């Protein structure tokens, strides 16, 4: 178990800067999820923490010791790879015990630890198999097992579930959460899937273009996104945005229509973007709400209905659980509860 500190860390590949001024403090036993679109630098950051990638600038500390030039072997952390990276020529038991054998742990201890881990992960019947004789889900478990037998200071996960089908992913997500509760080890988990981030994290680190966009609890990011990127990235379906000008306490849309803003928001600020989540929009028959919109598509998902609308020339989505809206007609009206509105300035920052 460990605390970690990342101090103005940056990374260049050649002349290209892929991470810039990353700062992060991680508490003992915390489960941190790095989330962001593909290519934003999540894996690079994780691999720098692991010691697999050189640190161009800044400092990474584990338990107050600077790790910058230490090889992976000296950092006492375990990592689960997206590809699982199981050793193909070793049995499941040998895969799991490799780290212990490298540390010259005595045989009985190894057997006992591998047994404990394999029981925990339901692998005890597969210990003699080679990785190629395992299903994807079983391989994933072996990769987890290899990490937990060591009882390392910290766990790193790089998109460990992205090769599994949806159902298995859901199941493993719950198991990872449970494992973390049992082991209580500091964990950093990388994913591009915001649902995984929301369900697993104690705190989420949202990343985009090599920068940290926001750090906070899942509900922080959902309720008070710091900028347009986080607002659009967290939540599914994504937040709706209405662009316009704010003056006299109203937002004037590009088509001239107006949306009244609550008094808590600035009355005048020029160019701005108003955001509202699809699940917070209130649908009503045409003419009976704040704004009318044309209906393009009705998408029943079983537990809800997603209405795809066109509003002021842009796509606008509504998520409702009222089956009345399965056949809404060509146009409907939408209203916005004032407390569910998010306002962003011309730079995209929350106001």
């Amino acid at each position, binding site marked *: 178990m460990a605390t970690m500190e990342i101090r103005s860390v940056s990374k260049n590949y050649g002349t290209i800067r892929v991470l810039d001024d990353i700062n992060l403090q991680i508490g003992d036993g915390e489960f941190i999820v790095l989330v962001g679109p593909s290519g934003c630098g999540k894996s690079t950051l994780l691999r720098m923490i*692991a*010691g697999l990638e050189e640190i161009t600038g800044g400092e990474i500390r584990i338990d107050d010791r600077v790790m910058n030039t230490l090889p992976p072997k000296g950092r006492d952390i375990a*990592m689960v790879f997206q590809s699982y990276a199981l050793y193909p*020529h070793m049995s499941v038991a040998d895969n799991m015990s490799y780290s212990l054998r490298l540390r010259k742990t005595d045989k009985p201890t190894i057997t006992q630890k591998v047994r404990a881990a394999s029981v925990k992960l339901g692998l005890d019947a597969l210990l003699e198999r080679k990785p190629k004789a395992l299903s994807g889900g079983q391989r994933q478990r072996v990769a987890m097992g290899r990490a937990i037998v060591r009882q390392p200071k910290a766990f790193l996960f790089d998109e460990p579930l992205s090769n599994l089908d949806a159902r298995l992913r859901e199941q493993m997500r719950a198991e990872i959460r449970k494992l973390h509760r049992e082991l209580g080890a500091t964990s950093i988990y990388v994913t591009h899937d915001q649902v995984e981030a929301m369900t697993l994290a104690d705190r989420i680190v949202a990343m985009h273009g090599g920068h940290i966009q926001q750090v906070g609890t899942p509900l922080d990011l959902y309720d008070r996104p710091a900028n347009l990127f986080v607002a659009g990235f967290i939540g599914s379906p994504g937040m709706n945005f209405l662009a316009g000008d704010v003056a006299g306490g109203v937002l004037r849309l590009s088509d001239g229509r107006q949306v009244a803003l609550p008094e808590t928001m600035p009355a005048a600020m020029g160019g701005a973007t108003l955001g509202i989540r699809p699940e917070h929009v209130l649908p009503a028959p045409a003419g009976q709400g704040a704004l009318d919109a044309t209906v393009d598509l009705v998408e029943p998902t079983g537990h809800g209905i997603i209405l795809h609308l066109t509003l002021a020339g842009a796509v606008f989505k509504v998520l409702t659980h009222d089956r009345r809206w399965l056949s809404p007609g060509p146009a409907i009206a939408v209203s916005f509860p004032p407390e569910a509105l998010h306002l962003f300035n011309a730079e995209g920052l929350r106001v």
Partner: protein
Amino acid sequence: MTATRIFGTLAHRAAILAFITFALFPLFWLLKVSVTPNDLLYSEGVRLWPSATTLDHFRFVLANSEFPRFFANSLIVSGTTALVSTVLAALMGYALSRFRFRGKMWLAGLLLVTQMFPLVMLVAPIFKILSPLGLTNSLTGLILVYTAFNVPFASFLMQGFFDGIPPDLEQAAMIDGADRFTAFRQIILPLALPGVAATLGFVFTAAWSEMIFALMLISGSEKATFPVGLLTFVSKFSVDYGQMMAAGVLALIPACLFFLLIQRYLVQGMTAGAVKG
């Protein structure tokens, strides 16, 4: 449907058979001549198999010629060359596959350049270099030269095999607590065995059949390798085909044994790394 499939299979097999026949026929002829008694060699005309066979040629070659010494020399030279070249090529191939370092492009280019010259051009300079070092007329000298000429291509061969092994594997090992060399030895090398086998085989056969340097750097029969030794069966007035072929058949044995030994790995290797023929 089934009829066309059966026909397709038959045609496929027939083509393979035709190719194997074509490739193995010279070897068959070698064997045939080696067991043909001298008096029947010219008198019987062209026949697939002589009316009488004999092992006299083999007996003579083993007992009365210098062939056993040539054979032993060849075994020492080829075996050592294969071993040393493969170790060097494995290390070099790994570096080329995994590391970024200054001058890597130049190094790879230089390695390629060494492959562009016909060996004949280099015989004289090599002789000039080795002679003051006392390495002419010595097996060590031959091993040195063969190793130098085989390592570049063998390195590219090994690099191809290492490229096929995901870097995640040694990174996982390094996180598990191995240093890079341990990860290479315990994780990557076992997975690259087909490549190691292919490289060993390639270098061994190249050295086994090499003629130009063996001929130029070695004088006399004391240090001669087998391809040069074969020439001793060509005398001023005649060629003793029977003995020559018998020696040839014997010379095939180690190569066959060697490939038998590594073929388990080689079959995977051929498809994985595309061996230069």
